[in-house]
């Protein structure tokens, strides 16, 4: 907000003399507008990416018809959804039915208030940022239960109940994993947390206290997957069991809102994970932080978040789905003990070695490079095999 304020007064000199409420309104509204549009239109990209990625993983092409390489497909779909009739089946509770998607969307948009896109590029730097994120992102649960209940449909009800159980359970390991980071940073403010990871990849919290923090990251990421109802934790809308789960009865615009919320939630989880563990807007190496005067913080955060979204999609198109009791098993008997142990151990370590283990500086880069190497080698081998195969077939 201060950033916008500075920008505005810098751009329009006369504005400095304006009444303060105008400045406050402009300084709040403009970032809100930008964020909202960016976030609200993001799902169009994510849906397209998801369809393409799934298609390639399954040896298909995916959308190819609308626009070059099907680029306009999701836009067409969105337009179609907006113009479609929103059907209210007989027996629905109209008020709840209407309010539910709004609440879900609101819940998924609110965390963006505190996501830091740069050292000063942040809507509000709440000093309880982490707490705020985990609080408002569970608002969606209320909406999901309302949707399931209002639909007057047994499948929707099942989906709603499942999602409530799931999100409530997974909040705990996710918050526990967050606590490790909070203890290390000594602050709940996301800005402070990011500041603690400055100075290149080896300083990211992901590689602190190796190998403890990678486990914390995996715990948080798994719990995050569950919170945004992605496979293998997509039981609230388990397609083959519950038809479409809580949004079985929704159509048109309201369905689009659920869709929007789901993908926005994905982005929230990914960006929070990048802020907490992957150095937020910090580049892997300080020299990449800016090109001349242009700060690249937003780019790095976006890149990290999108990479995590890609991993989510990758997982989704790889894994089967868990059952309800197994889901609870994973939450309460696997992730929760792990995160408890992490909180205790990391808490003790923070007191003893506040700067991390001595070898922490030397693990970050090798691990990253090895992982990337694996991916690139796999890619090259797949491509060369595919080319050879094509030649064989043509012969």
């Amino acid at each position, binding site marked *: 907000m201060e950033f916008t304020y500075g920008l505005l007064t810098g751009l329009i000199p006369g504005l400095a003399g304006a009444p303060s409420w105008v400045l406050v309104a402009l300084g709040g509204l403009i970032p809100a507008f930008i964020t909202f549009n960016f976030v609200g239109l993001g799902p169009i990209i994510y849906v397209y990416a998801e369809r393409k990625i799934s298609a390639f993983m399954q040896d298909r092409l995916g959308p190819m018809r609308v626009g070059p390489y099907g680029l306009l497909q999701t836009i067409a779909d969105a337009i179609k959804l907006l113009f479609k009739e929103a059907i209210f089946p007989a027996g629905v509770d109209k008020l709840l039915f209407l309010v539910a998607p709004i609440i879900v969307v609101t819940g998924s948009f609110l965390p963006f208030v505190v996501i830091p896109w740069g050292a000063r590029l942040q809507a509000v730097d709440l000093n309880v940022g982490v707490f705020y994120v985990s609080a408002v992102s569970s608002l969606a649960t209320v909406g999901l239960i309302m949707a399931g209940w209002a639909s007057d449909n047994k499948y929707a009800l*099942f989906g709603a109940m499942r999602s409530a159980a799931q999100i409530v359970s997974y909040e705990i390991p996710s918050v526990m994993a967050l606590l490790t980071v909070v203890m290390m940073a000594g602050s709940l403010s996301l800005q402070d947390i990011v500041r603690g990871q400055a100075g290149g990849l080896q300083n990211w919290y992901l590689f602190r206290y190796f190998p403890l923090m990678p486990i914390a990251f995996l715990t948080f990421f798994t719990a995050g997957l569950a919170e945004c109802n992605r496979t*293998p934790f997509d039981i609230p809308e388990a397609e083959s*069991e519950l*038809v479409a789960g809580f949004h079985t009865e929704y159509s048109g615009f309201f369905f689009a809102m659920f869709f929007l919320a789901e993908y926005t939630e994905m982005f929230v989880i990914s960006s929070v994970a990048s802020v907490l563990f992957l150095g937020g807007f910090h580049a892997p190496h300080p020299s990449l932080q800016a090109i001349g005067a242009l700060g690249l913080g937003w780019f790095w955060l976006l890149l990290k978040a999108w990479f995590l979204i890609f991993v989510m999609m990758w997982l989704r198109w790889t*894994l*089967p789905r*868990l059952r309800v009791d197994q889901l609870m098993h994973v939450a309460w008997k696997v992730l929760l003990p792990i995160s408890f142990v992490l909180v205790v151990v990391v808490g003790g370590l923070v007191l003893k070695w506040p700067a991390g283990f001595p070898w922490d500086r030397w693990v970050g880069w090798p691990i990253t490079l090895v992982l990337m190497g694996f991916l690139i080698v796999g890619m090259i081998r797949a491509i060369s095999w595919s080319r050879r195969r094509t030649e064989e077939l043509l012969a």
Partner: protein
Amino acid sequence: MASEHRAADYAWDVGEIDTDEMILNMGPQHPATHGVLRIELRTDGEVVKAARPHIGYLHRCFEKHAENVDYPGVIPYTDRMDYVASMGNSLGYALAVEKLMGIEVSPYVQIIRVIVAELQRIASHCVAVGTYGMDIGAFTPFLHLLRDREKILDLFEWTCGARLLYNYNWVGGVSHDLPEGFPRACRDFLREFDAITFPELMELLIGNKIFVKRTANIGVCPVPLAVSFDLTGPNLRGSGVPRDLRKDAPYCGYQNYDFAVCLGKGDYGPTGSCFDRNLVRAREMAESSKILHQAVEALEKTEKTDVHEKVPKRVKPAAGEIYFRTEAPRGQLGYYIVADGTGVNPYRVKVKSPCFTAMSVFHILARGMMIADIIALIGSLDIVLGEIDR
């Protein structure tokens, strides 16, 4: 000795329903019921207290039709019963009528029949295992397997001109000879299947811990129950009973091929679970591939004969009746054919379809499951509603 599983014990009584219980109607329009199956579930939360399947939504009067067309004319109808494995259906019918008329086809035709039947078995199991993965939530293996199934269908289209409903196995022969270059194309396909698709399926789906956890402990069918309810094929072998008609009562010269009967071993839980049934199917694909390698080799060595050589001008068996069963991909497919010796139409054709009997045990296995397991159970029984309802 009365069976320990009395059907009456599983009767359905809505009157005794508690206020805590709920009746959930699954199907006939449901993504995972493999067709138009409708199941009424009495659930207590996620736990299913009782299930009652309702079938008949795809009833196309096969038996009545069969009485009104001549013997060769029944074959297109048999194709449409189990539309995922048409070759197996028509093979059973053709063999039954041949036995009724005392026709013995040449070894060349027998090898052709083995080849198409085993290709069809791979194709059918591709669908079965793939859709099973989809029921559990993994979508990708399904499309990988369908990709390979398409290759088999290409082979079939090349052979007889149709991709799904072939009308290929005739009484006394097959409709077309295999085209030139078929052995090479078949080997090409098998090489790719053995080297890539099958190992990838094992890695991606069947070896996956989530998949194992989802399927290994549910839907356990003990052997007495399986035998009493006439589970056959992979469903029976999943319970650990080594019964395969290709070994026990060989037809079409299956005794000449070397292959193993895959059994459920209960690697991750009790024997006879959904996982075992599914694993048996997956392994059978590999066994079929083994048979195919041998059959293609035998095909090249065998003297070519006219495939229409033994096709009778007029199929008119003498009065008599026969019950003939073959090992279709989904289990024992039995044809009970009564010929009255006067007309060219069969007097009565009754089909014992493996899916029908597999479905009849469903309500017993489904007790006490969770809703997600119901889907896993349906998938592991590998039903095709076209065959249940006929």
